[in-house]
């Protein structure tokens, strides 16, 4: 891993093997669209306008539908554009707009594809939407300025970060109830679970750290400082083998690689400017970042640190593989 530290991503065309997922889907907050990037040809093959400001982006568990959180450009105003947009992956056409509360920013979907939990940034709430009926079935008060959402692999709990109150609220999805709250680092943004469900990871943008959480007890185990606490970490993603967590440090233009078991920072992967979203391929070999400052994605081979970049829309925010 140390060899990664010496690697500088110079821009275009290295040899990352992104065959596990051929396409990367990128939400572009500035241009109001989703870029579909062919990771084999290293080019944008489609651009899908979503009529609003897209941020959170996820594929359905069956990978047939791409969901994108869309809101208006003004905070604290409930507008007609606030929705989760559903896009058919095969045709790349919008198939519906799903109600998910006001100003949805990030969201996640239960593994059975039944429920979608979204953070409603302006209202200080999280909404649970039944994807079968496409109706909001519960709206729960969480922390102030909620943003990140992750659902545990067993589908029971949703973690919702809140940027202003520095909290993570734990929602029991079947009970439709908040069952715990945790204070975490300053300005928490991204959150994700390890695939085995034992740990969760929460980035703190102003705190410059990532919290490792016991996801069974809903307790913070440790805070890990990143980039001397000055990297402004946002996106987080865990390798499929549960061993590594990758954190996008927006101000450091780099991905931190952290051991999930002991919290050691074991690598650093430079990428292009202002990485916010980050995703790991299913085989764990490739990391993709959405770089808001350079209007690009970086595609990095985890084992070699080599990679390439592809220009996408304006202010890319999130990425799904």
């Amino acid at each position, binding site marked *: 891993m140390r060899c990664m530290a010496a690697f500088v991503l110079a821009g275009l065309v290295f040899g990352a093997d992104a065959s596990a997922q051929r396409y990367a889907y990128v939400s572009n907050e500035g241009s109001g669209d989703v870029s579909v990037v062919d990771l084999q040809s290293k080019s944008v093959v489609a651009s899908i306008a979503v009529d609003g400001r897209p941020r959170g982006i996820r594929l359905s568990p069956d990978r047939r539908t791409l969901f994108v959180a869309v809101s208006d450009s*003004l*905070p*604290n*105003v*409930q507008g007609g554009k606030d929705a989760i947009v559903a896009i058919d992956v095969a045709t790349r056409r919008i198939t519906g707009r799903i109600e998910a509360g*006001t100003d949805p920013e990030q969201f996640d979907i239960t593994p059975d594809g039944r429920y979608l939990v979204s953070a409603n*940034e*302006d*209202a*200080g*709430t999280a909404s649970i939407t039944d994807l079968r009926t496409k109706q*909001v079935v*519960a*709206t*729960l*008060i*969480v*922390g*102030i*300025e909620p943003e990140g959402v992750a659902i545990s692999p067993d589908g029971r709990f949703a973690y919702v970060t809140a*940027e*202003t*109150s*520095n*909290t993570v*609220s*734990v929602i*029991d999805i079947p*009970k*439709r*109830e*908040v*069952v*715990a*709250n*945790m*204070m975490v680092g*300053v*300005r928490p943004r991204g959150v994700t679970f390890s695939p085995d469900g034992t740990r969760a990871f929460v980035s703190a943008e*102003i*705190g*410059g750290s990532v919290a490792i959480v016991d996801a069974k007890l*809903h*307790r913070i185990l440790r805070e890990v400082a990143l980039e001397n*606490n000055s990297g402004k970490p946002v996106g987080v993603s865990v390798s499929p083998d549960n061993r590594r967590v990758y954190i996008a440090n927006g101000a450091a233009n780099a991905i931190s690689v952290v051991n999930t078991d002991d919290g050691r920072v074991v690598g650093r992967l430079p990428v292009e400017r202002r990485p916010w979203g980050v995703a790991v391929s299913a085989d764990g070999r490739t990391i993709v970042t959405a770089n808001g400052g350079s209007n690009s994605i970086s595609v990095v081979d985890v084992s070699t640190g080599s990679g390439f970049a592809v220009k996408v829309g304006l202010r890319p925010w999130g990425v799904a593989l």
Partner: protein
Amino acid sequence: MDRRFFIRGSIAGLTGITWRHSSAVAARLRDNIELRLALLPVSDALRAGITFGVQEARHAARLFDASVVLRTFAADDINGVVDERCTIVISENISDAIARAAADGAVLVLNAGTAMRCGPLLFHLARVRSSGELVWHHDLERFGAAQLNARYEAVAGSAMNDAAWLGWMAVKVAWESCVRARSEEPRAIAEYLVRDTTVFDGHKGRPLRFDPATRVLDQPYYRNGDLEPVNETTASKGACET
């Protein structure tokens, strides 16, 4: 939908939006945590910011079955402050009586005004500023500033100005310090505030810290008409630095 109605409705818990928090299994910070704040006479603008800050602090406190109490006192009524068990004082001016109470360890002062005094329990939300120099402006948008401005406007009915930000920040500092220091005791909070790991988010895009030498909050400053931060450091920080 009207912006103000929407926000107030959400926080108050209109039909379908509920505080469904299970206290039986909720992760409590500490039993019976209660932050008691004393407010001395301040300007209307500062008071509006404090009121908004208390509202947000109470929202956060409710997540943990905690509470935030705000009591108002006359300028020199230190006996009242102590009788009401308020351990943090928010003020615009630091009277001799309040300074003595802080020196005795009875209270910690968060000063949102420009009158600087030096003492281990006297903390200042901003340094002395030159004419036209601001800590906040309602046109700021980055780093969550737009969201903060909008939340404040929805509650207060006016744009967040310099004084309102100072009031909101004072309460935020008080609440977070009380929680993270695991104490309402003034000296414990003071010790927490000057730790090198202690930072706050003022929606200004970088960590804000109290300078341990001056106990002034280091932060970006702005000028009217120019929203890029200016003059972040200065040789004249506070009464402790002469």
